């Protein structure tokens, strides 16, 4: 086996979760002998983790709605991905995900506006 390109793209947790849901459905429809044990295990465990993360309540539409709204804040690709995956709900959370927050967001209000944008677009995560 050969690795042609290590990272074609990054995936949001929501994309992975919805793909795994489809894989699970496909596997369930197969005969017992046709199923792959290793695959079932990793799909089950990954789904278990993602189902308790903010990804569980998201869908493609809400993420597509959020991305253009983040444009004025000039976040990097990795930061945008983190924002979607973690759904920061306060300024402490978002400072963690954005590098050099103080320089890029000199006013606290701007940062709070960003938090509000994210909280409005993405639904609250499932309760633990």
């Amino acid at each position: 086996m050969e690795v042609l390109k290590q990272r074609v793209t990054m995936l949001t947790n929501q994309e992975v979760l919805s793909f795994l849901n489809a894989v699970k459905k496909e596997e369930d429809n197969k005969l017992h002998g046709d199923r792959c044990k290793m695959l079932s295990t990793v799909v089950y465990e990954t789904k278990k983790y993602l189902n308790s993360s903010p990804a569980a309540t998201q869908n493609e539409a809400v993420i597509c709605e959020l991305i253009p709204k983040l444009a004025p804040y000039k976040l990097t690709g990795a930061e945008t991905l983190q924002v979607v995956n973690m759904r920061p709900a306060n300024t402490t959370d978002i400072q963690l995900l954005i590098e050099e927050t103080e320089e890029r967001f000199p006013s606290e209000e701007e940062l709070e506006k960003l938090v509000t944008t994210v909280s409005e677009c993405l639904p609250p995560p499932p309760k633990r």
Partner: protein
Amino acid sequence: MFILSLLRDTVSIKPHQLSSDQQMVIKKRLNERLANKVVPDLGLCICVYDISEIGDSFILPGEGDCRARVTVFRKMYCFNSKVSDFQFRMIVFRPFVDEVIEAKVIGSSRQGLTLSIEFFEDIFVPAEKLPEPHVFEEDGQVWYWEYAQEDGDPPAKLYMDPGKIVRYRTTEIIFKDLKPDLSMEEQKTEKSMEIKGTMASTGLGCIGWWTSEEEDEEAVEDEQDEQEGVAEAV
């Protein structure tokens, strides 16, 4: 956390599988080979995303050929496996450096904390990367963060015991090529992929530490909404 990687491989398809959907057969073979396994310097493979290009297929001479040299092609086809060369994309777990991830504490020792995200359990936060000042309690083998309070009260002990959900920042991913003939003991300590993390920064550590009061209110409101919803349903 997850990336798509482009890989290339060859798979042989057994004669009895030639009649079924080739894409399905190939996907199954690949998942058997790679799902839930670590590829060195890449990451932990989750599952095949799609097959982008099926290259040339060829049939290797085998059983059928040696018995009769002049085998008609059709017969050969029945006896031999078909080998396909193709490219496919794989969902791979490979966090980037500086990525913040939520995980559950599953182990605690003087060396540090071991964290789990269900499908991957080799995440380690060394003691020196725990929030400062940190204290190890011999009794119970747990770590706590000695949080100084503003109003002159004795510092609060914020525990990081197993079962707690914490946030850590990825600092390093270490791959190790393991020999296949490891003893049981070596298998337990040696890891083909290990993530090192830190919790020494504002916002990291147990998730309960940083939630503000506003959010609690929001949570309470949600609960009330739910209760109202239930009442309406009744």
